[in-house]
């Protein structure tokens, strides 16, 4: 065995470690990308000053509390916790919720049908209305940045 063949795995390992430590964000799945593109188009028509989606805006949306007509403050974090990488709990039923962050739960934000379903349900639960294309785009961008 030559010295270089001994080194190769080491080098590979080092490269892998580096890429992991430099890891920021999850690449958008094909479904998520398609949705993001669609939302961007709609956002442009609905808001002429729309500048593209931002993770910071998405983070704001995640944490913003809405005073619900039932008298309690609700936000995404009510069930998904302050840290989307943590497991949550449906505060109404007590059912455990797997982490929302695709960085720790790779199934998240991979299926258009599922993404749309949860936006519809959960926006209504928190905000008492459906989310706009712009909000969904910011939110998804934030999740994919984690």
């Amino acid at each position, binding site marked *: 065995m030559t010295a270089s063949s001994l080194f190769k795995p080491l080098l590979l390992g080092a490269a892998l470690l580096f890429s992991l430590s430099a890891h920021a964000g999850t690449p958008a799945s094909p479904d998520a990308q398609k949705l993001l593109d669609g939302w961007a188009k709609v956002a442009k028509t609905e808001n002429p000053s729309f500048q593209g989606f931002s993770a910071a805006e998405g983070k704001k949306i995640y944490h913003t509390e809405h005073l619900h007509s039932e008298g309690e403050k609700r936000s995404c974090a009510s069930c998904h916790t302050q840290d989307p990488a943590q497991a949550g709990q449906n*505060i109404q*039923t*007590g*059912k455990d919720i797997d982490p929302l962050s695709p960085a720790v739960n790779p199934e998240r934000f991979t299926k258009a049908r599922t993404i749309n379903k949860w936006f519809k349900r959960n926006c209504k639960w928190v905000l008492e209305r459906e989310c706009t294309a712009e909000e969904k785009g910011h939110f998804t961008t934030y999740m994919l940045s984690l």
Partner: protein
Amino acid sequence: MTMKKLLVLGISASLMMSCSVATWAGDDDDDYGERGEYGERGEHGERGEHGEENERSWWSSGGPTQPVLDSIPNQPVVFQEECGACHMAYQAELLPAESWKALMSGLEDHFGEDATIEPDLNQQILSHLVTYSADQSRSRISRRVMNGMGNRLYLRISNVPGIARQHREHVSSGMLKRESIRTIANCQACHTTAEQGDYNEDYVRIPR
């Protein structure tokens, strides 16, 4: 204790275990039924199954090894995916067909929440629920559900008279407020075998 004594003990213990396994496997619905503690020992009560019950809880404190309700092995995948995402996927045997029809046609306001699902999935789930509903099932829990229901339509399982009565006797509102429980809809918080369809009180552990 000598080695021989130990051996004899071991053999008799395993014999006892296999006996109670056989007893239980043979009569899953009918005989692990109504019990004296709830003061409603009914038509299935007085048959000495108390002894068997105790034996069963003695050997199987870990819970049943297989689902005790017929619907469970027949649940479509989407049933767990859709219903089970927000709450325990309550088994079909827990409500009569009429209740399931009403629930599944009113998902846009599902106890105050929008729980709408795609029409094809809705149809698939409803058909499962109706097939194994409480009025079709001979399971112990279904008999309890149907008992005293009359003509009223119930949407909440916990409001069904037979179920509500049991909980009134054993569950305080203080218990329900605990973070580990939160709501009476959270069956599996206390019924450790709820997801296997076994609501027998032998498996109730009320968390702190």
